[in-house]
């Protein structure tokens, strides 16, 4: 499964970077969302994918019974998801405001600091 997901993540990255290179500012945001999703998946895939063994400790035990999924990458991704959402919300509002002021969504037109 990991090798399959490696290709999927590669395609996701390619799509994200292609969108971020567009001149439309809306497409830049879409690229940003794609990028954060592919980064999360990347970490998840690299840690190894385990089916049906969540990192939980049953009642009465002091350690998980048997092999469970690696909890550390999950903690990292959880943080990443939330931060990515904060960044996304901020950037969406920012571009909306930029559009209100400069009246264009073309990034190539937004290269002067004194518009």
């Amino acid at each position, binding site marked *: 499964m990991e090798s399959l997901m490696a290709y999927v993540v590669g*395609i996701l990255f390619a799509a994200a970077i292609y969108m971020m290179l567009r001149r439309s500012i809306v497409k830049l945001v879409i690229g940003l969302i794609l990028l954060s999703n592919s980064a999360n998946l990347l970490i998840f895939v690299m840690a190894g994918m385990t089916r049906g063994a969540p990192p939980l400790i049953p009642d009465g035990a002091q350690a998980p019974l048997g092999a469970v999924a690696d909890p550390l990458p999950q903690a990292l991704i959880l943080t990443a998801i939330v931060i990515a959402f904060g960044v996304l919300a901020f950037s969406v509002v920012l571009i909306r405001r930029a559009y209100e002021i400069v009246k264009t969504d073309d990034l190539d037109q937004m290269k002067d600091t004194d518009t």
Partner: protein
Amino acid sequence: MLLAVLSGFLLAVLTPAIHRVVGHTVGWVLAILPASLAVYFASLIPLISDGGAVVKEFAWLPGLGVTLGFLVDGLSLVFALLISVIGTFILIFAGAYLRGHPYLGRFFVIMLSFMASMLGLVLSDNLLTLFMFWELTSITSYLLIGFDHEDSNARKCALQGLFVTTAGSLALMAGLILLAVMTGTYSLSGILASSDPLHEHAFYLGAVICVLAGAFTKSAQVPFHFWLPNAMAAPTPVSAYLHSATMVKAGIYLMARLNPALGESMLWSTLLVLFGSVTMVVGAWFAFSSSGIKKVLAYSTVMTLGTLTMLIGVGTELALTAFVCVLVAHSLYKGALFMIAGILDHETGTKDLRRMGGLGKTMPLTALFACLAALSLAGMPPLFGFIAKELMLEALLKASFWSLGLTVAAVVASMLVVGVAGLVAVRPFFSAFLETPKKPHEAPPGMLAGPAFLSVVALVFGLAPYLPETAVLQAAMTSVAGTPVDSYLALWHGVNAPLVLSGLTLVTGITLYRLWPTLQPNLSAVNTAAARIGPEAIYFRFMEGITHIAGWQTRVLQNGVLGHYLLVLVAVTFGLAGFTLVARHEVHLALDLSGSRFYEWGIAALLVAAAVFSSITRSRLGSVASLGVLGFSVALIFILFSAPDLGITQLLVETLTVVLLVLVLFKLPEFVKLSSPLERFRDLAVAIVAGTVMTLLILAGLEVQYFESISAYYSENSAPLAQGRNIVNVILVDFRALDTLGEIFVLALAAIGIHSMLKLKAEDQYKP
């Protein structure tokens, strides 16, 4: 010794306070320091004249092997005496010349620092400290030349001087390091004492060229001569000090100092003689054809610097004797003449020689000292300049190579200099009276003290040459030559070839002086025409070129287009990473499908389809919807592969994201095609390369594990230490709680930012 060098810096720190206390007499008060230094150096004379040398070492950066070493032998003692004696009178003179100047305190701070740096330079024994003081003189002289910082011309000239000298000193640093590598020591006394011949060393050529590049720029040799006359933008006391006795002589000092180590090779002699003689003639020519009194003196300094370089290059015992005499004579008369130029400027309000005349009646003392100094400049008996000039001519006549050419060049230069001497001493004082912008009167004692002392010393040395000779000059010659030198200085050598040549130069020089009013405008026109292709024009073109390149580079790299920045970043990052991966690691394009189940295939296909569709669709709603599909598929992956917490969070966040996008993005315009097909193709290529590199990285990364995972610690200790059963949650809120706090902080900041952006109305900023 350490105190002698550093006291200048210490006093410079206290100068503003002293200035506030003593007011206008600050020049006299500060002059006590160089005067006492002069006494101190004079007290070393008996030791040095017996052939001794003082070497003192102080640990400075022992870890790096840098010592603060000082070496006093004949040569450095001559320089130290000149610096401190002339410095004394310059400080007195500057106090009177700049009387009432609002920045007088600042002036003395820089002046004293410069003096201390110069002393450090000539007394250093360690090559690295020598270089440090060398740079300090460049920096302080930059501040002094640009002292009148509200004048854009002064700023420009100061910068020019700085650029030229520091460009040279970069080369000098390389040269000094090569020298140290060749000899294995950074100590000057060690290098001079070592008996190994450096000429055969592989680095010899490089070391000579680098050292000479530094010395030639500092000492204004052709083609780097142009910064010196421009440096006349400085206040006159600065010119008198920097461009007579100190700054420009630093290069001369270095060449003389290293002559025993690097000299006596064909390369060294040829380079020095060639550059020196050309500089001598060019300097004399420009001196005679200029009309500003300071420019005239500046170019005659260039001429002398050329002469000194040439004499080191000739290198015979006689030439080195002449070198030391010309050096001392020049410092004495040029210091005096610059101060007289300052007096004339100060009292008449003009620097133009064509507008001065008949000042002898109102300024008799100035006229007297000007004549004495100018006689020395022209090389007439009974002044010390005469002895120096006779020796120079004799040395050139007996030179081992190019004797005839050098003698002719020196005679031509001397003729022009005789004319120059007339210009600065006869014309302003004894020609027909001319009205000047200010009513002239005799200079105050503070301004007369310097010219008086220096010109009288030149006279005394001329009448009794054995006085300086036995004191320090012989020792100085010895240190330049590297072997003991027997000299015989005398005013009267009998009628011989040099005397005849002297007479010739005198007669021609006087004729030239008489013709000057008619010749000068024509000569000056020739110079203006030549300046278009001269070294200064090249300098300006070079500086403009740098500005152009900087502008072009900024336009290319900092073009303000986000897409280009991103493109470069992505291409470089993934290009390098991909190259390293392919070059250093075997790439296996494995696709192991055996472990996958059919619905997992479905999710993977859904992910790919959603990503591709959101990138190519022209509909905003379609794009946002497919992003939603993508997010939910990711959540499914999380849930299927043992990460329920991630799945829940992803579902919540994805829902919010879609809502947010729908709310905001639909206030923005429709998608339109902005890029050309070629641009899209380029971006697609970069994106595909990046995606491929990521896939390869994951495949490579899955095969290796370099370190033991730290996850086991969390799994084992979650329940016993943190009393939690969901390990992921325990990591977030307990083991790595500080990280989570940081995350909350980021979210709060984003929320504040969003709130303030929504609150501010766009129009508000642009209301007039």
